[in-house]
Each structure stands twice: as structure tokens, then as C-alpha cells.
């Protein structure tokens, strides 16, 4: 599923990382716990999270995650946007909950990690 289709599915707003819109995302992982995110070694993942802080960006960097979708209308701070730009990570947000976002994307064919 392309990132642009993911954003259309959840009424998402891309904040930075336009070059990633055509990225093919294979799987989604939803968690507010970065400790859990760090257990995943698969590639081409969309991180869906309500954790809107620098640690979400830093964790994505370490796990080679290029696409982050913030839920519950958690708009990223300027520091997060600067970090994401520097690390070439696409950052978007949606007003939907973690549950609704995950459900809609799963129904559209985005596969889970487990």
C-alpha cells in the first residue's frame, strides 16, 4: 500500500517527507510503546502511534522506519519535524484513534507485522 493511499484512507495530513508519498509500505505496526517498536526488524513498516515526541522519531531512525503516522490528532512539534526532515522520515497525522486508523488500514490490505 502506498503512503499516499494510506493517508487518503485515514484523512491523514502529511507534515513532511513528500518524497515518500509513493513509498510502498508492506506492514503496519501500531503502538505507543517505543520499546515494542524496537523489537521489530522487518523493513518497509508504517509506525502508527499516539506518542508525539522526539523519541518516536529517534526510535524510527534506529529501526529504519521511514514512515510515521500520528493518531488522535497529535500534531508534531517543530523539533520533531526538523528531526524527521534531517533523517528523511515522512511524518503525518490523523484525527482518528489508534484503533480506527489500524482497523481502516487493515481492511484496506495493509498487513500486520505479527
Amino acid at each position, binding site marked *: 500500500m502506498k503512503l499516499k493511499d494510506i493517508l487518503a484512507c485515514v484523512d491523514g495530513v502529511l507534515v513532511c517527507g513528500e518524497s515518500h508519498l509513493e513509498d510502498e509500505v508492506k506492514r503496519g505496526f501500531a503502538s*505507543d*510503546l*517505543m*520499546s*515494542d517498536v*524496537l*523489537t521489530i*526488524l522487518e523493513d518497509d513498516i508504517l509506525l502508527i502511534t499516539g*506518542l508525539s*515526541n*522526539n*523519541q*518516536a522519531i*529517534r*526510535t524510527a*531512525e*534506529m*529501526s*529504519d522506519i521511514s514512515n510515521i503516522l500520528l493518531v488522535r490528532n497529535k500534531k508534531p512539534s517543530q523539533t520533531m519535524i526538523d528531526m524527521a526532515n534531517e533523517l528523511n522520515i515522512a511524518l503525518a497525522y490523523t484525527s482518528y484513534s489508534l484503533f480506527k486508523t489500524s482497523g481502516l488500514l487493515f481492511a484496506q490490505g495493509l498487513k500486520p507485522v505479527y
Partner: protein
Amino acid sequence: MRQEYLVPAQDFSVAGVASSNLKRLLKQLNINPFTIKRIMVAVFEAEVNVIAHSFGGRIVCDLEEEEITIQVIDTGPGIPNLDLAMTEGWSTASEQVRELGYGAGMGLPNIKKNCDHLTIQTKAGEHTHITMRFCLKEGE
């Protein structure tokens, strides 16, 4: 080649900076991307542990042709029960650490999972010295 990075105590504004610098270096050395990911997850977990639980410390990386050895050495206060600390889900992290998305008790088990060889020397009241080794040759 040896690289060393300082890690302060309790300052989460710089959490991941040392790991990020190391990752940049490993990429420049053209190390296999999956190996880099394993190394970075393990080192980042260790870096967060130093910030969250210790009085500060340092990360020392020795980069050789066939192996990378990374030592994470803090200045205390040590781990009273290492067996418990290695148990998934067991954590002594503060509420502040949990609010930042860490402290789920996955750190040390995840470090063990991602490196090829791990030793941990620690004792209550003393420092903790973690040594991680990563083989760079495929199949080892």
C-alpha cells in the same frame, strides 16, 4: 578503529544522539543494512538504559574487519538482580521514562536478541559494564 560517545544521566533530550552518530559511521563503512539495524537497536536500548537508570556513562565501539565490539559502561548504581532484569516485562523505569515510550522491560532482553555475544558485569552499588559483539561475516 575506536569511537567513544558520552551518555549523560537523565537527559532524554539527547537520548539517541550517540546511537545516531554511531549509525552514521556504520553506514559510511558500508556495513550490511540488516546488521546495522541489529546493532543500532541494541545500542539504542543500552543508551536509553544508561540515561534512564544510571549516573551516566559512555559507549565505546571497536570496529574491526570481521567484528564490532561495543561496550556500554556506566558509573553506577548497578543492577541488583540481573536475572530479573533480563526477564521480558520486568522494569524499574520511572513514570517519566514510561511517558516517553520506554521502560516496558524489553531493553536487556532485546539487546541479547540482537547481538551475537553478550556479557553483562554488574553488582548493586557498582557500575554496569555491558559488552556486545556483532559478527560482520555472514553465517557466523
